[in-house]
């Protein structure tokens, strides 16, 4: 306070207007970020009307923590005690990589978070699997030590069946044939399809439980049954046996309906520089001009030839842009919408997608039927059921346990980046044998049953040192070396903490905390308006800006919202108005000294600032240490509270101040009235206040 001049800075009316406009823009932008779906509706409306082609916002939701969306968190300790200190960090990274691949591939988790952290001397791997409920499987999958295998090409072909096996096969299939014929006879006699399903069908238990009903099928599921159903009348039972890929069937047609409409269309694509897969150097504007001129000349008759000579789509010169028949979900949304809404024979466009601009000619529309059928199924066998087909690769006995290490190196003459492998004595011998056998042939390196590299052997390698080269970038080579090392140096991992939360529990939490936040916000707003009246209303506007901006920042920085984070945010709503309360109490005092409205409000902000600053800094100090404690709940809370406090200082001081200047500008007289709490002048001005009021430096 001592250093600030006590002459309240005032802004001119136009400055204030610009600032208020700036605040309004900020608020609208933050709303767009928070609620992109509404914003996108607006943008596409504008695009429709004006053809401006404003890009839509990514309709991404908030990042929800595990406690809100349900899932599993597992913490592992990596046992690196057997590994040289310099390699520890790398091998833990290797483990991280393997775990990530396993949960992506094995569990099908699309957005796993796998992080490594170091606590003292301990390396930890923290795995978060949103949406996963089967913890046991996840733990089993992750806990396995990575398996590295070397395989060579399998030259053997599948053996043919022995006479005995052939006989068994024929007998099995004959029996199946007899069984299905018996079933058919019985149905024709008793007219009871259901009883025959129960008696004869070898279908899955669930299908039999549904009286053999397969539901509505289209021509992709059991095309043979579909073909029969297309000709049969409703209620009919097939009079001959229908052979499908899995066995023999008797089908009954229950009903039919129109399936999903499909579109037959061709298109012309004009891509531009930076569009996905584009090799042209045209600018976006040029591409747009070109497609517009094509549209002007295109007719149903010349469309194919125009596509052949103009479309930038690969192979367009042969296909003429023909897309065949497609259904919903097969094309990019914008393209699909346009193709579906066009009339048959119409040319529409240009439609913008990530590939460029499209002109679409819709040549037809089909609505295939779908048939509801039930079946009696009898299993048959083929030769491959008895002798399985042969793998392209066969194991060689060389595995990661014989690999000493893998590292990224550079070829001394060509400078090419490669991964070099070193085997132990047993591995050296095996590798030497394998390479001698396979000169000129590829060998495959498998990690966890998945081929990661298939280099070709140039010469037999007998010294146990091999290199894998293949145009790697440095990062790719490093990744491969890491993978190889993690297969080669199995780092045992130990589960040290786990947490499972059901999705239902999570969604309950979202609902209740949303409700709590909403009610809290409304109550605080009511309190402020009822108590402080006009300034209260201004602070509520600032509070809305605060809410919008804070949520917008959460989204932009990709902060993960957890239950605790929401709690921190709700709490910060209560604390955000504290700064306003400080200012308004000051305002009240200044007004009581008999100051004019504008001067009093400038003074109030100036004097309250040091309190606002100092008090918020202590909260921030707490938050910083909370972040440091480091577990999920704590961090979520601290980060949101910290951001909340920072944003609230901005909204309380800059936003409220300028809004108040702007609003006060509408007052003809520079005096407070009933719209201000405590506006009446104090009758006896205490001596103390005169003192503080007169301070000037």
């Amino acid at each position: 306070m001592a250093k600030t001049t006590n002459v309240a800075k005032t802004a001119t009316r136009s400055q204030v207007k610009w600032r208020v406009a700036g605040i309004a823009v900020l608020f609208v932008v933050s709303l767009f970020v928070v609620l992109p779906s509404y914003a996108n509706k607006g943008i596409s409306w504008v695009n429709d009307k004006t053809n401006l082609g404003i890009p839509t916002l990514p309709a991404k939701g908030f990042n929800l923590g595990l406690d809100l969306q349900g899932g599993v968190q597992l913490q592992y300790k990596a046992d690196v005690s057997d590994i040289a200190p310099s390699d520890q960090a790398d091998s833990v990274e290797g483990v991280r990589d393997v775990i990530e691949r396993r949960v992506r591939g094995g569990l099908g988790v699309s957005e796993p978070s796998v992080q490594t952290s170091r606590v003292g001397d301990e390396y930890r791997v923290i795995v978060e699997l949103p949406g996963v409920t089967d913890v046991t499987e996840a733990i089993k999958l992750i806990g396995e030590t990575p398996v590295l295998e070397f395989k060579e090409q399998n030259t053997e072909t599948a053996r043919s069946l022995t006479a005995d096996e052939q006989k068994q096969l024929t007998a099995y299939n004959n029996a199946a044939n007899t069984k299905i014929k018996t079933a058919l006879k019985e149905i024709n006699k008793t007219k009871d399809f259901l009883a025959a399903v129960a008696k004869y069908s070898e279908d899955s238990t669930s299908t039999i439980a549904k009286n053999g009903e397969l539901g509505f099928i289209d021509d992709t599921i059991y095309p043979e049954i579909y073909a029969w159903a297309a000709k049969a009348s409703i209620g009919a039972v097939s009079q001959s046996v229908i052979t499908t890929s899995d066995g023999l069937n008797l089908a009954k047609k229950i009903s039919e309906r129109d399936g999903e409409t499909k579109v037959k269309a061709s298109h012309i694509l004009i891509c531009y520089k930076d569009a996905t897969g584009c090799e042209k150097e045209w600018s976006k504007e040029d591409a747009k001009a070109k497609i517009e001129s094509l549209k002007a000349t295109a007719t149903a008759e010349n469309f194919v030839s125009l596509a052949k000579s103009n479309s930038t789509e690969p192979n367009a010169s042969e296909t003429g842009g023909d897309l065949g028949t497609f259904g919903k979900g097969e094309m990019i949304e914008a393209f699909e919408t346009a193709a579906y809404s066009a009339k048959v024979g119409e040319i529409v466009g240009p439609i913008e997608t990530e590939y460029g601009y499209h002109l679409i000619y819709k040549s037809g529309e089909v609505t295939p039927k779908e048939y509801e059928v039930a079946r009696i199924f009898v299993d048959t066998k083929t030769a491959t059921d008895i002798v399985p087909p042969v793998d392209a690769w066969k194991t060689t006995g060389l595995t990661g346990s014989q690999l000493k290490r893998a590292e990224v190196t550079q070829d001394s003459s060509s400078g090419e980046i490669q991964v070099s492998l070193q085997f132990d004595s047993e591995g050296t011998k095996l590798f030497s044998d394998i390479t001698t056998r396979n000169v000129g042939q590829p060998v495959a390196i498998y990690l966890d049953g998945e081929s990661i590299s298939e280099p070709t052997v140039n010469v037999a390698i007998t010294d146990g040192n091999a290199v894998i080269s293949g145009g790697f970038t440095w990062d790719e080579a490093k990744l491969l070396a890491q993978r190889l090392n993690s297969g080669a140096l199995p780092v045992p991992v130990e589960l040290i903490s786990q947490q499972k939360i059901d999705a239902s529990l999570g969604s309950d939490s979202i609902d209740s905390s949303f409700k709590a936040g909403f009610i809290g916000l409304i109550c605080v707003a009511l309190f402020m308006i009822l108590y402080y009246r006009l300034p209260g209303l201004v602070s509520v506007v600032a509070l809305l800006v605060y809410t919008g901006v804070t949520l917008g920042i959460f989204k932009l920085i990709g902060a993960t919202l957890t239950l605790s984070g929401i709690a921190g945010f709700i709490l910060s709503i209560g604390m955000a108005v504290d700064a306003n309360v400080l200012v308004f109490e000051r305002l009240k005092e200044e007004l009581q000294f008999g100051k004019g409205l504008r001067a009093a409000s400038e003074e109030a902000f100036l004097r309250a600032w040091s309190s606002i600053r100092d008090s918020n800094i202590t909260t921030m100090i707490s938050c910083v240490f909370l972040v440091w404690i480091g577990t999920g709940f704590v961090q979520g809370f601290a980060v949101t509270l910290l951001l909340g406090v920072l944003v609230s200082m901005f909204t309380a001081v800059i936003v409220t101040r300028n809004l108040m200047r702007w609003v006060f500008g509408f007052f003809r007289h520079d005096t407070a009235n009933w719209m201000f709490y405590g506006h009446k002048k104090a009758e006896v001005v205490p001596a103390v206040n005169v003192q503080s009021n007169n301070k000037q430096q």
Partner: protein
Amino acid sequence: MTIPFVKYSKFWLFVSAGLAVLGIAAIATWGLKWGIDFTGGSLMDLTFTGARPENTAVVAALEEVGVSNALVQKSGDNGLIVRTATMTEESHQKALATIKKEFETKDNVISEPSFEMIGPSVSQQLRQRSLWAIILVCIGIMIYIAYAFRAVTRPVPSWKYGALAIIAMLHDVVIVIGIFSVLGHFAGVEVDTTFVVAVLTILGFSVHDTIVVYDRIREKLLHRGQSQTLEEIVDSGLNQTLGRSINTTVTVMITLFAMYFFGGASIHNFVLALLIGFVAGAYSSIFIASPLLVYVERWQRRNLTAKKA
């Protein structure tokens, strides 16, 4: 009207000291009921669609598969919370299977909405970090206040503001921990990470509140008239910030109550700790931190005169 806070402050200081002593006594006798975050262990949260089994029956069933010393507790209308020592996933599955085998019927489906297992190394790390965080926050705040009040060194040196703010803050924290010690003993309320978060937040807020009052006193001290005593300045500062103290507490309480009643059961204790701490924080700024400033000044003066004599 000016409320003479300092004049009656002795009474409030005794009340506060009494509360703090009670709090410390409760902590000393009963301690806190630590959650598995700090002790390590496993926690199974079970819900039943029908009648839940007796606690003892569950314990007995778990004994049979080698899960000993399980603590079973009822939660909500149809839930059970089962606490055990740190379990491997294998024994967790075995325990769950046993409970399902023993108690699950067609009309009483058992599900496990959440399961938590904290190993000893994780809980140890958390214990250490929590303690350090509390210590470092105290030091950080003290340094900051000493810095922020550096211009005011008379009549009370600036570091003493920091120290007094910390005393008020410790008072608040002792009351919160004391109440949770009582709740832990009589109602089985556990103290987990969320509680540490609440305590650290209270630390921040308590000082936040004290600073607002001190800031006003600081402002008055910088421009005070010759005739004014520190007591008068403190009283007028307190009176002028009273409206703000009440209103800020009210708005924060509103949001906390909204969270308490609508925010779901999982954050109940967290919000409760914050509620107690925030009330105590607002109270201690007015009735402890500020009057103590006057006493410190009197004590200093007495020492000074004693030395001169």
